[in-house]
């Protein structure tokens, strides 16, 4: 939100790749004023700017919904694909093979991901496709005017929809079940945490699920709703204080006194520093992750932070043994078409 004022500043700040924050923006948003999705777009802009990412090195993907519109509102200079409702994961999976040196950043909604998109959502996690997958989670279908999505809590009552009777989908629990290698949750009201998690996700080599409670101010923002600003502010319980330290920047030891922090080294050399809060949480333990998720459901808190990370498992494009640093979509005809002599071999295979 404070971003908008920044642009008005006379001295435009350039980052290490010589770009100003403006170079990371997109078209004017057409979402409702106050929509959580807009705050997240702002943090995506900030994270990419601060990470010194060249926007052309990113592809952005989405499905259909208010949330899925938002890629039009950030990173104008990145290639983007606003695909079909619930089918972003498949499009993303294919797209990342075009040039696997690019970073993939995907935005989806709870309806897009957990209703119509449940299957593709689960399967892209199984494949550990290297991509940041942000779920802008508001418990409703914003764009079609406020019907329940699968993440709506049981018993939620909405004016025109009545009561939700079905067991809610917990995005992070699904991510754990499907072997996602980076599982985080945040709250659009907590801009700093959102930004830090997006940075960490962009540094991860594998699928990074970031489930962000992102209130729909138009259709689901009563204080007693689990996806409202009010409830989020009241019930947020961060697992840790979260600091992202880029590769370039050495960690100041004094800053994070011994024993009070944990560090996770990411694929690209950056480090995530987790400062203990109530408990000493180990985000590399599946069992711990499953336990806190289950507990947070019981205790009805909005548990946020980096819930799980596995920096070891090879990502989808690793498995496919693609050339180092060379894009498939730049291959020459000679590389792609077997030589003339090979036709003999093909015919000889037949009988």
């Amino acid at each position, binding site marked *: 939100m404070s971003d908008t004022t920044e642009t008005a500043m006379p001295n435009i700040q350039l980052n290490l790749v010589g770009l100003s924050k403006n170079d990371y923006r997109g*078209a004017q948003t057409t979402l409702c004023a106050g929509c959580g999705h807009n705050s997240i777009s702002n943090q995506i802009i900030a994270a990419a700017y601060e990470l010194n990412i*060249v*926007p*052309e090195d990113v*592809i952005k*993907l989405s499905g259909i919904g208010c949330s899925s519109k938002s*890629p*039009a509102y950030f990173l*104008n*200079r*990145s*290639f*983007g*694909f*606003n*695909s*079909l409702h619930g*089918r972003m*994961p*498949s*499009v*993303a*999976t*294919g*797209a*990342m*093979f*075009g*040039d696997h*040196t*690019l970073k993939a950043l995907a935005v989806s909604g709870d309806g897009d991901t957990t209703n119509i998109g449940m*299957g*593709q959502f689960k*399967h892209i996690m199984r*494949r550990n496709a290297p991509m940041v997958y942000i779920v802008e989670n508001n418990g409703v279908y914003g764009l079609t005017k406020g019907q329940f999505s699968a993440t709506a809590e049981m018993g939620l009552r909405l004016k025109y929809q009545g009561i939700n009777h079905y067991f809610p989908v917990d995005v992070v629990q699904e991510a754990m079940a499907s072997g996602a290698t980076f599982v985080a949750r945040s709250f659009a009201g907590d801009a700093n945490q959102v930004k830090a998690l997006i940075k960490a996700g962009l540094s991860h080599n594998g699928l990074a699920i970031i489930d962000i409670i992102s209130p729909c101010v138009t259709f689901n923002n009563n204080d007693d709703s689990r996806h409202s600003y009010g409830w989020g502010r009241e019930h947020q319980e961060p697992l840790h204080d979260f600091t992202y330290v880029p590769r370039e920047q050495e960690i100041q030891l004094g800053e994070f006194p011994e024993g009070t922090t944990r560090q996770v080294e990411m694929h690209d050399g950056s480090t995530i520093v987790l400062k203990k809060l109530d408990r000493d949480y180990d985000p590399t333990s599946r069992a711990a992750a499953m336990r806190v998720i289950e507990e947070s459901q019981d205790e009805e808190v909005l548990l946020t932070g980096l819930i799980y990370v596995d920096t070891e498992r090879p990502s989808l494009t690793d498995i*496919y*043994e*693609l*050339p*180092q640093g*060379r*894009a*498939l*979509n*730049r*291959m020459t*005809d000679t*590389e*792609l*078409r*077997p030589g*003339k002599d*090979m*036709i003999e*071999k*093909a*015919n000889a*295979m*037949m*009988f």
Partner: protein
Amino acid sequence: MTTPQVKEAKTSQGKAVVNDFSMTVATMNGSGSQTSNVTLLRALFKMGIPVSGKNLFPSNIQGLPTWYTIRVSKDGYLARRETHEVVVAMNPDTFVADLASVAPGGAFFYGDHLKFEINRDDISVHSFPAKLLAKESGAPANLRDYVANMAYVGVLAHMLDIDMDKIREALEYHFDGKEKPIALNMGVIDAAFAWSTANLKKTDPYRVEPMDKTSGFIMADGNTAGALGAIFGGVQFVAWYPITPASSFAEAISQNISAFRDKEGQDGKTYAIVQAEDELAAIGMTVGAGWSGLRSVTSTSGPGISLMTEFAGLAYYAEIPVVVWDVQRVGPSTGLPTRTSQGDILSTHFLGHGDTQQILMIPGSAQECFEFGWRSFDISERMQTPVFVMSDLDLGMNQWMTKPFEYPDQPMDRGKILWEKDLEALKEPWMRYKDVDGDGVPYRTAPGNRAPQSAWFARGTGHDESAKYSERADHWEANMDRLVRKYQTASQYVPAPVLQTRAGAKIGVIAYGSADPAILEAGDYLAADGLATDYLRLRAVPFTDEVRDFIAAHDKTYVVEMNRDGQMHKLLLLEYPEMAAKLSSLVKYDGLPLSALWVKESLQAEEQK
């Protein structure tokens, strides 16, 4: 049994029918009989005799009736025939019907473990001790059931005069030179041959003789051919979901691509193949890959085509090149999953809600499957739109005698794709959906392009020429009009039809795909009966000018196809309503490959009306 001078007895028959009959082997699936059948087929082919092999199999894995038919035709006719002169029965469940199916004067062979009454005296009947021969050949006990089927290979080799050396060659090919299985199987075959020589007396006229009619040909199934074609087309991305009869297309790419594309010293693969979770994901991945600048293909059959509908519309509208290989089987619905059909023509051409016109390419031989394997990428990238290659189960899974695959006669056509230097060279600013050349085909860029302003935002919603979101009525209409122009342009790129003419023919026949051999054969019969026909084999939708000219030039044109509703006939009506009266529809939709007899008789019946 006596041991007559069998060789002489056979050849001395005056009415010998040489190289011109069909033989069918009735077994159970999962019983290992496929090896026996293709061994026979290959041996005959290697003897220089034109052959085709068709497998009629059930939709399960083990234990149900399966028939394999080999047509032997000195005239080079490769279509299914409706009569079987030589029948081998190995399956008790179908014994009675199999026995009944032998053409009068034909020969019937059966394993002597089948105890049934033989109620025909108009055919030659022979039993042979399949299990015993397997045992005596020395095959280990656990493999005996599998190799027992080799017994009929040996018996037939003897009784039909199939060259044993060719049989060995066929086995060597099949087992990739591995001596152990070759010896194992050859053991049974030899034993059976010897047993047959010693025990059976030839009384039917059917036999083979070497000829030289297969040189310059290969035998291939369309799925493998298409897969190799795709490999030669520089395929970079494959996403697929298993389904009969399409699975072997993607599997053949998987199994063969490394041999053709991995080069020494290469720093990584030039392709990726993903088994998707379903067809929605398969086409979605393919669309994503196509958008990102890769040559990408997915393969499926009718049920998968249905599931791809929404993505087909997106790719049509967002103008993403992808190739979809549809190996058609009998629908609607799950239908007859192991039977052949040409039933997806209409629904695929119109695939997607709203106004869509999809490009279809229709191969008619295994060689053409190879060609369309690479050419479909050229057309799809040139037109920036999905291309559906409409194969079918018969073409895709059966063994076809075909001309050898030809190395692509054109360099890869990557279409109007712009990279950094191309953009730099432009005089006008690039716009994703602008019709610069007046052919309806815009220019595109792909992710990874670092040139300023090269990025664009793909979407299925209304957009202007710059790919920006737009709900404006004029933008929408202009864009849709351009897509029509583009479709018209496509007719310059799709393969033209293949023509076969006869002097004085006033009747035309239009057909396509795997109907080809039956039409060719029927054309000869009709001509022999005094009715000259010309034949146009369609190879694509949209149609090219040759089609119009052909219909115009004939008094009447029959559109022969394997679906209930005359789907191609319908598309022709829509394209040429002014010639509607000249077009007639002939359809067969029972799941079996067309026979020349049916084509001939149906056409004659229509003519007599």
